[in-house]
């Protein structure tokens, strides 16, 4: 087990970006261990992709060192590097004539002969990668016929087939519906837990990061950087700071962003259980601020199910949440 805790990737005083005048972030000292699921988190356009590509050796750093297992990245031969780290990119520019299975099998290219031919062992690994990502059924489909989610899974299968200790994914959950996102997270988690891969993925999906990350790298606008457990970053206020703006409120107890309703009209909800919870959610959505003891009140009574809204000068009852909402929007 001990070798799972040695860092597979470290950086020392790393500066990334395109030109030294316009560095995206500097002084980065990062470390990833086997079995780590690391989330690179940050608002759009802050340089997450550049950081990932730099760590993958596809983009030159401006300054500093990157090491894989203690060996400087730039001194590793291209074909050796291909057996150490694999990537899944956001932009897919694959030729439309490719079939899903061919894409996955291209992950075995670093192990293939000069002509690109593969042996039975390679074929087995390809099949296994496809069944792990549950895309075996897509094998003969053209890449142009796949949905965004299916394509993403095929490219993740390709990275798995490359069989590298480090897998890097740039926004793997973009364009994908929520259930599929969770499926992908479970898959990545399994790669870290069962196969002791180090997985680094960039996302701006805070929910998923708080749910699944072993460690978060938080890249903020202006090159600020923080790292820690997801919970630590909530408690330290780093998450709040890097995403905060006047209209958005980071709720530190739920780990969610909400509309800033601080200036909303206060309202009190009296009721129980899920009914009360979702009535409150509806009111917040309508711009109210939940505040017990407020002058405006919504009373939920069962038998028959009724929402009664009481304000300073009148009171109305509604048989459905929709009618309550309708009334409140017209006040």
């Amino acid at each position: 087990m001990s070798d799972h805790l040695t860092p597979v990737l470290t950086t020392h005083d790393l500066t990334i970006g395109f030109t030294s005048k316009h560095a995206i972030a500097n002084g980065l000292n990062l470390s990833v261990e086997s079995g780590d699921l690391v989330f690179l988190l940050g608002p759009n356009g802050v340089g997450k992709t550049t950081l990932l590509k730099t760590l993958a050796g596809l983009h030159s750093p401006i300054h500093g060192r990157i090491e894989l297992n203690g060996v400087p990245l730039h001194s590793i031969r291209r074909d050796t590097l291909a057996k150490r780290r694999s990537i899944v990119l956001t932009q897919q520019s694959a030729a439309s004539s490719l079939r899903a299975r061919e894409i996955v099998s291209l992950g075995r290219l670093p192990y293939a002969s000069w002509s690109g031919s593969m042996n039975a062992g390679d074929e087995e690994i390809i099949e296994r990668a496809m069944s792990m990502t549950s895309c075996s059924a897509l094998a003969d489909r053209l890449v142009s016929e796949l949905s965004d989610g299916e394509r993403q899974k095929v490219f993740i299968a390709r990275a798995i087939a490359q069989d590298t200790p480090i897998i890097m994914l740039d926004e793997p959950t973009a364009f994908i519906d929520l259930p599929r996102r969770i499926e992908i997270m479970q898959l990545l988690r399994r790669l870290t837990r069962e196969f002791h891969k180090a997985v680094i993925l960039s996302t701006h999906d805070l929910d998923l990061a708080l749910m699944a990350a072993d460690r978060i790298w938080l890249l903020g606008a202006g090159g600020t950087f923080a790292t820690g457990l997801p919970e630590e970053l909530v408690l330290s206020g780093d998450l709040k700071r890097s995403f905060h703006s006047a209209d958005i409120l980071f709720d530190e107890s739920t780990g969610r962003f909400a509309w800033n309703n601080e200036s909303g009209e206060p309202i009190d909800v009296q009721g129980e259980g899920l009914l009360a919870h979702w009535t409150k959610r509806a009111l917040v959505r309508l711009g109210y601020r939940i505040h017990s003891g407020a002058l405006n009140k919504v009373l939920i009574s069962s038998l028959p199910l009724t929402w009664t809204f009481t304000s300073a000068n009148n009171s109305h009852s509604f048989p459905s949440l929709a009618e309550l909402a309708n009334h409140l929007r017209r006040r």
Partner: protein
Amino acid sequence: MLIVLLGIVFILSLGLGSVSIPPSDVAKILVGREASLPMLSTIVWDLRLPRTLTAILAGAALAAAGLQMQTMFRNPLAGPYVLGVDAGASLGVALVTLGWGVGAEGFLSNVGLLAGLGRLGAATLGAGATLCLVLAIAARLRSDVTLLVVGLLIGYFASGLVGVMVYMSVPESIQRYLQWTFGSFTAATWPTIGLLAISVGLGCLIALLLSKSMDALLLGEEYAESVGIAVRRVRWGLVIGSSILAASVTAICGPIGFIGVAVPHLARELLRTSQHRYLLPSTMLIGAIVAVIADIIARGPGDDVTLPLNAITSLFGAPLLVWLVLRRVEVSQ
């Protein structure tokens, strides 16, 4: 199977024409025995064999070059001429054939030197010069798409120059120039076939050595880099290799359209694979077969009268491409 088919069209091509020679006689002549008529031997050895061999080499070369460009640009409509090699060759030939017309005005008096080289030399020089220009520009570019645009623009520029020269020329020399642009496999003599074979062999060897890298390039440049392919070096190989193929064919046969674009699609449909270690040899074989068939059709009237080869390849190639494109659209919906 493709090799058998190539064998069949090869024998057919040697037998068909204004004088029909039965396959049994063709076989006899090829192995050096006497045919029923001595004249037939002359027709095969001096006319039809050079022509057929040229078609085989040219077809294989154009198809291989087309496949390389389609893979490099990940664009199904790319072909051997996307980098402007044909335009360069046309410019060279135009300078020689049309140069006479303007040379008298002193406008292009130094063209006389070029004219001495003949059409073949001029086309080679033109294609080679374009190749060097494209390479010089490619060295400064990181993106394949930019290279594609540059190739197109070089092509337009050369066509513009040719247009000016055509406008200022006399009808006779325009006729000579047009003759070349029609494309033909008849111009080749045994020594030029030898040269063509060497350069086509070299170009195809480069392509075969790059088949694994071409597989990777189908994913895109960054993915290719990530699986250990030296993308920049491979791009040089592809540009040089395909340009050698396209330039040598164009110099000898004129700019021949559609074979280079359509044949790789045929090969993909037939093999249902994108792996270049299978795709490339098949593409070359199909290219050779298609070129020989096109030449058989072109000589319909007889050995001495030949329809423009480009007209044949376009008449058959364009509907084929339309069908392939429509099929792809239907499949993806």
